[in-house]
C-alpha cells in the first residue's frame, strides 16, 4: 500500500546553505561583478538583484576524463545518407553533429556560469567592508538609553522585587541548619522522659529536670526566626545600554543657479546610496532635506531634487537651519545624526569661514558623520579650503570628496565610508 504525504509545507529552502557556500566560495568574482554593476546601473534602481556570471572554467570541478583525440568510435542515431565504408571530411573544429556527443562529456568548456543574486545579497556585497565610522563606538559608549534585563538573584534589593520562592527556601535551609543539634537533643530528652515516666514514675527529680530541659530546648528552637534578613533574595535587574537604533540623515544641497540638473542627479545618487546604507544599519531613519541658495528651507524630497531656483549662494544658511532642526527635534541621546552635503563648490566668499565655524562648533560635536561632496570638474574654491580645516580637526567624523561624474560615486562612497576601527 502506498503512502501519500503532503510535503508542500515543509521548508523549501533546503539548498540555502549550499547556495551560501557557493556565494562564499566565489565572493571575489561576485564582488567584482557587483562593483561593475553599481557603476553601470542607476542607483535609484537598487530594488532588484543582479545577474552574476563567472567563467565556466573557474567553477568546474575537475575529474579524470578523456580528452579529444585518439581513436574513437561512436554510434549515432538518425542516419540519412551514409553507407558503410564511406569517408566523410572532418567537420571544422570537430564540431557539428559529430562532435556533439562528445562535447557533453568533455564539459562546459569556456561557457559562462550565470546566476542571479537577490537584492539583499547584492547590497550585502556592495556594502561589504563599509561600516559607518564610529558606529561601533557609538553603540558602546554613546548610548544614553538603557533597558533593564534580569540578571539572576542577589542578596540586596528593592522589597518589590523579592523572590519569594528563593527566600523561603533559604529560610527553610537556615532553620534546619540552626536548630539541628537542639532538635536531636530534644528528641533524646523526650524519649528519656517517656521512658522514665513509664518505668520509674516515682523518680520525680529526674522527670522534673528532664521536663525543664525539654522546655528549654523547645524554647531555643522556637527562638530561631522564621525569616531572617539574610534569607531575603531579590530578583536582580541590571541596566544594559540600549544602542540607539534611530538615525536621522540631513541632506543639504545647493540649488542655486550654478547647479545643473545633471549635477543634482549625481548628488541624488549619492544621497540615495547613503540612505540605503543607513537603512541597513538602523531600524528607523528620518531624512531631512534642506536646500539652499541665499536662504535655506526644509523641503520634501520632490521639491528638493526637482524644483529650480536661481540666485546666489550662502551655504551657512543651510548649516544654520540644520543646527536648529537638530536642536529642536533630534536630541543626540536618541538619534544618530548623519549629515551629507552636496554642492558645486560655489559660495559667497565671506560666508565660507562662517560655515567652518558653524560646523566646528555647533554641528560636528553632535553628529556621527558629516560628508561633503563637491560635484565639479573645476578648481576648488574657498569653501573646500575652509572645510579642509574642519577635516583636520574632526579627522574621523568629517570627510570631503570631489565627484566629477556618476561613475565616481561608488568609489568615493567607498572611500568615505571605508571601514575604520573604532577608536
Amino acid at each position, binding site marked *: 500500500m*502506498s*503512502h*501519500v*504525504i*503532503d*510535503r*508542500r509545507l515543509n521548508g*523549501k*529552502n*533546503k*539548498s540555502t*546553505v*549550499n*547556495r*551560501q*557556500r*557557493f*556565494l*562564499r566560495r566565489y565572493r571575489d568574482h561576485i564582488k567584482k561583478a557587483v562593483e561593475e554593476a553599481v557603476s553601470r546601473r542607476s542607483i535609484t534602481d537598487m530594488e532588484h538583484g543582479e545577474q552574476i556570471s563567472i567563467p565556466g572554467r573557474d567553477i568546474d*570541478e*575537475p*575529474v*579524470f*576524463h*578523456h*580528452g*579529444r*583525440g*585518439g*581513436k*574513437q*568510435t*561512436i*554510434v*549515432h*542515431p*538518425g*542516419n*540519412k545518407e*551514409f*553507407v*558503410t*565504408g*564511406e*569517408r*566523410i*571530411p*572532418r567537420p571544422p573544429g570537430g564540431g*557539428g*553533429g*559529430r562532435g*556533439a*556527443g562528445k562535447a*557533453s*562529456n*568533455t*564539459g562546459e568548456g569556456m561557457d559562462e*556560469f550565470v*546566476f*542571479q543574486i537577490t537584492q539583499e545579497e547584492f547590497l550585502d556585497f556592495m556594502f561589504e567592508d563599509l561600516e559607518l565610522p564610529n558606529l561601533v563606538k557609538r553603540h558602546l559608549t554613546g548610548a544614553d538609553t538603557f533597558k533593564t534585563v534580569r540578571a539572576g538573584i542577589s542578596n540586596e534589593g528593592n522589597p518589590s522585587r523579592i523572590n519569594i520562592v528563593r527566600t523561603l527556601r533559604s529560610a527553610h535551609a537556615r532553620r534546619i541548619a540552626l536548630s539541628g543539634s537542639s532538635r536531636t537533643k530534644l528528641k533524646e530528652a523526650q524519649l528519656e522522659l517517656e521512658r522514665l515516666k513509664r518505668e520509674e514514675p516515682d523518680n520525680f527529680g529526674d522527670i522534673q529536670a528532664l521536663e525543664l530541659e525539654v522546655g528549654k530546648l523547645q524554647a531555643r528552637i522556637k527562638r530561631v526566626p522564621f525569616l531572617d534578613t539574610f534569607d531575603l533574595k531579590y530578583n536582580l535587574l541590571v541596566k544594559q545600554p540600549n544602542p540607539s537604533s534611530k538615525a536621522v540623515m540631513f541632506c543639504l544641497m545647493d540649488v542655486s543657479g550654478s547647479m545643473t540638473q545633471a549635477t543634482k542627479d549625481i548628488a541624488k545618487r549619492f544621497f540615495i546610496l547613503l540612505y540605503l546604507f543607513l537603512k541597513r544599519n538602523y531600524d528607523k531613519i528620518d531624512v531631512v532635506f534642506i536646500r539652499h541658495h541665499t536662504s535655506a528651507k526644509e523641503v520634501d524630497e520632490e521639491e528638493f531634487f526637482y524644483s529650480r531656483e536661481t540666485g546666489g549662494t550662502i551655504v551657512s544658511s543651510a548649516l544654520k537651519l540644520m543646527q536648529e532642526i537638530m536642536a529642536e527635534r533630534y536630541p543626540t541621546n536618541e538619534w544618530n545624526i548623519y549629515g551629507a552635503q552636496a554642492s558645486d563648490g560655489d559660495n559667497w566668499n565671506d560666508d565660507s569661514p562662517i560655515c567652518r565655524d558653524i560646523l566646528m562648533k555647533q554641528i560636528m560635536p553632535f553628529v556621527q558623520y558629516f560628508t561633503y561632496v563637491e560635484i565639479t570638474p573645476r578648481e576648488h574654491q574657498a569653501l573646500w579650503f575652509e572645510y579642509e580645516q574642519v577635516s583636520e580637526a574632526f579627522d574621523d567624523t568629517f570627510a570631503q570628496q570631489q565627484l566629477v561624474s556618476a561613475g565616481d560615486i561608488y568609489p568615493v562612497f567607498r572611500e568615505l565610508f571605508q571601514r575604520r576601527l573604532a577608536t
Partner: protein
Amino acid sequence: MTAHDSSVPVKKRQPISTGSEWTFELIGAYDREIGRLAERYALDTYPIQIEVITAEQMMDAYASVGMPLGYHHWSYGKHFLSTEKNYKRGQMGLAYEIVINSDPCIAYLMEENTMCMQALVIAHACYGHNSFFKGNYLFRTWTDASSIVDYLVFAKQYIMKCEERHGIDAVEDLLDSCHALMNYGVDRYKRPDPISAEEEQRRQKEREEHLQKQINDLWRTIPKGAGKRGEQDNKRFPSEPQENILYFLEKHAPLLEPWQREVIRIVRKIAQYFYPQRQTQVMNEGWACFWHYTLMNDLYDEGLVTDGFMMEFLQSHTSVIYQPPFDSPYYSGINPYTLGFAMYRDIRRICEEPTEEDKHWFPDIAGSDWLTTLKFAMSSFKDESFILQYLSPKVIRDLKLFSILDDDQKDELLVPAIHDEPGYQNIRETLAAQYNLGNREPNIQIWSIDRRGDRSLTLRHQQHDRKPLGNSTDEVLKHLHRLWGFDIHLETLQGDKLIDTQHVPPKGDSDHDGDYPRLDLVIPPI
C-alpha cells in the same frame, strides 16, 4: 490510439476523474488502480511513499543530486543556482519526478503537475523504477535500500561536526579533493559490505584508532632487522594495482588525520551507492518508460481514464522518448529513454510475434513468455551487457543507428557500419562498449608508492586507442597531491610502453612546493 489490440470491447467508460486538477483522494485512487494493474504483471516493488512537493522543493531535491538529504557543499549550491536560473527563464521544465532508491521507495510528485502527469509519474517511478531498484542485480548487490537514508543522516551530521571542529574551509577543501576522485572511489568487482548507519557510528571510533595504527606501521622506518630489510624493500606496494583510489588513500595516505579518513570514506560510500545508477541508465529509464506506457494503456483499456487524459499522456510520453537525429541542433547523444524503451518493447515483440530474423538472432527468446523474459533481462544485466545481448536489428533499423570512426591520425572520418545486415553486429558491439563505464573513464590505477624514499605516489594510466587525458587532469592531480601529501606521478602507458609522465609538483620546480594545495598537515612522528 493504443498499441494494444482494441479487441477488448469498449465498455461504457467510467473514468476515475475527468478534470486536470489533482487531489489527494484522486492520487490515492489512481495509485490503487495502477497498483492493481501492476499486480497482474507481478511487479515486485518496495513499499511506496509518494510525497507531493512544490516546484521550489523540486529544485532543492534536484540540487542534492537525488539524495533525500546531503551534506553541505558549494557544488550543490552551484547545481541549485543553475537549475533555478534555467527553470525561472523557462528554458527547462523540471523533471516530472525524482525517485529515490530507498526502502520504502520515495517518489516526489510536483504540485504543478496535472492529474494525468501525476498518474504517469506514479506508474513510471513508483512501479517502474521501484521494481528496477528492487530487481536489478547491480542494485541488489551494491546498494542497501533500507539503510541509505540513515547513512546519509549519519554522513551529514558527521561532516557538520567536522566543520564545527575544523572549520568550513578545511572540510570544503577536503571534499573538493574527494569529489574530484569520486569516480575512482568505487569497487568495481568486489562487493562491499552493506552499509548501516548504526554500525557505522559504532565502528567509527574504533576504526579511527585502528587505522592510524596501521598507517604508522606501513610507514615505519625503524629497521626491523638487518637481514630481512633488502628483500622487503624491493617489494612493490601495493602488490596489485589499485583501482579504488579513494579507498587506498583512506587506508594508506600517510598524513591524514582520522576525521579526514572518515570523510573520504563517506564520499566513497556515496559514490558506491550511485555506481549502479550510472551503469544502468538505459535499462532503468527504459524499464520505467515501458511500464508507464503499458500501465497507462491498461488504464485506458479498462475505461478508467478519458480520451483527453490519454492524449495528454501520449504527448508527454512522446516528448520523453524523442530522439533527435544526429544532425539536429538538439542532439546531444543517444537518449537513454528512447533506446531503453525501444529495446524493452522490442523484446516483448520478439516474444509475442517473432519474425524469421528474430528467430535467427534470438533463438532463445523468440516466442517465449514475454513477461518472464523481460524480467530476466531487467534483473540480470547492466547497460553494456543488456545492449550486447538484446539490441535487435529492428531497433537498429528503427533508430537508424550508424557508427563513426574518428581517428586523429586520419584526415577523414570513416563510417564503419550502418543499420544493415553486415553492420548489425558491429553497431551492437560499438554501442555496448559506449556504455561500458570502464571505456568511458580513463583507466587509471595506483601503481606504487615509494615507501622508503620520498613517499611519492605513482599512478598508471593505461591508454586505450590513444585517447588522451582531458585538460583537467592536472587539477585532479593537485587534489590527489593534497590528499596524499607528497609528490604524485602519473605515467601514461600504451601497452607496455611508457609514453608520457606528469608530475605534481612539476619536476624541477620543487621551490614552488608551497603553491600547491595541501591540507594543513600535522606530520605524525614516524
